[in-house]
């Protein structure tokens, strides 16, 4: 009969033989076969020699040393409780929030006073008389607001697409500096969050879903180190490419700009 193979012995040594020949039958063979038993002893002697390879000792304080090295690279720092709020009031964000507010007011005014945007009135009711039916007037206002939101989202998606394309096309040297892209991503994350929350509030799930996917990628870029090794950068690039986020953002952005994405109100009124 056959001796045990080297592979069987290795599996037996690590306790992984049960799935193949079976531990019991291997043991039985080892009891009866001096050659295989000697082979197993030899195998174990080799592995004992591997065990003897020393690992440089790092003292008890090693963890603290590691912390001291990585701490400056961490993005978040120990901050007082009001620090995150302070970040909301940087001039650029105030200007952006003001812009969004103006858009919302414009949407409200337009919805209230522009008769051309009203849908066809039901039978027996004269078109252009929104006050006659408050329910229709409310629908109109929401439609206009959502159209304006979609225009702003389209613009945001376009800028995000450009930022992602610039990032993935970064020339790959031994190290890659993505400090500009990171800064850009941080700004986009802030806007993205605002649009996503607005889309959720208005019930626009399609927009919210794309913005949610985009936000994850933007957050990852925003939290990446400014200077990355080539390997790390390749991983980020591969992840972006695998998720197809650039394609998704481009296609959805085009649809939004062309007006082929129905607003939730449109969908409810016409669908």
């Amino acid at each position, binding site marked *: *009969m*056959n*001796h*045990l193979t*080297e*592979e*069987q012995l*290795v*599996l037996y040594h*690590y306790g*992984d033989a049960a*799935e193949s*020949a079976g531990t019991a*039958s*291997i043991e*039985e*063979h080892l*009891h*009866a*076969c*001096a*050659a*295989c038993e*000697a*082979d197993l*002893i*030899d*195998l174990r*002697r*080799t*592995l*004992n*020699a*591997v065990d*003897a*390879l020393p*690992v*440089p000792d*790092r003292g*008890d304080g*090693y*963890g603290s*040393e*590691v*912390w001291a*090295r*990585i*701490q400056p*690279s*961490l993005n*978040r*720092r*120990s901050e007082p409780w009001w620090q995150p709020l302070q970040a909301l009031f940087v001039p650029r964000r105030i200007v952006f929030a003001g812009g969004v507010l103006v858009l919302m007011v414009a949407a409200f005014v337009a919805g209230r006073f522009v008769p051309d945007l009203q849908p066809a009135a039901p039978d027996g009711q004269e078109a252009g008389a929104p006050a006659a039916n408050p329910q229709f007037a409310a629908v109109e206002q929401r439609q206009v607001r959502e159209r304006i939101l979609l225009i702003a989202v389209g613009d945001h998606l376009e800028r995000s697409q450009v930022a992602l394309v610039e990032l993935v096309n970064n020339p790959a040297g031994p190290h890659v500096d993505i400090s500009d892209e990171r800064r850009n991503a941080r700004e986009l994350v802030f806007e993205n969050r605002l649009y996503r929350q607005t889309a959720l509030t208005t019930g626009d799930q399609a927009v919210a879903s794309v913005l949610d996917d985009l936000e994850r990628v933007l957050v*990852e870029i925003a*939290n*990446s*180190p400014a200077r990355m090794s080539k*390997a*790390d950068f390749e*991983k980020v690039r591969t992840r972006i490419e695998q998720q197809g986020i650039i394609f998704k953002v481009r296609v959805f952005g085009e649809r939004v700009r062309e007006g082929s994405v129905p607003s939730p109100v449109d969908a409810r009124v016409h669908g």
Partner: protein
Amino acid sequence: MDVNDAHDVTQAQAGDELAFRRLVERHGRGVFQLAFRLTGSEPDAEDIVQETFLKAFRELRRFEARSSFKTWIHRVAVNCAYDLLRQRPRRKAESLDAADEDGAQGGGIEPEADGTSRPDRLAFGAEVQRRVRTALELLTPTERTAFVLRHFEGRSLVEIGETLGLRTGATKHSIFRAVQKMRRALAPFVGTAVGIGKEGLEPGCSAGL
């Protein structure tokens, strides 16, 4: 999961940097040991430790406590080391052949059974260590990683397969190939069998499978 780890992970996920610091302090040494065994190089191991904890910090929100923090952080370290090993040029088998010629003279050296520290015994030990290091460098990144995880870390075949993206059969084979290469490389020092001699010893062995 260790109670301290569980608490610190929760705190760190909520943005408590000091909690993350405690995790680094608690697991830094273990990650270094693993990284050193995987790479065989102190500078590389130091880089991997650093990269591992930075990556862990960024991805801590994804940690779901289905495994222990130690298992998770070690897996992050293994992935970092695996990437590094794949980029690193591997030693060729000829380098070991050259060493064989030197080592052949020492093939008959046997350490003293009484455990005394004779100079030739120390030299023998140092030579074996050098040979083990060289033999490890001959392994492919997959073989080396699979071997280290099975032999030193005691990970199951399934866990190793998940980490390396291999099926169980391929994982087994990687470990076997690694051990086989180690045996060939260390044969002149630790024994002579290495799968030979069975034919000559007991041609009529009847206890086979």
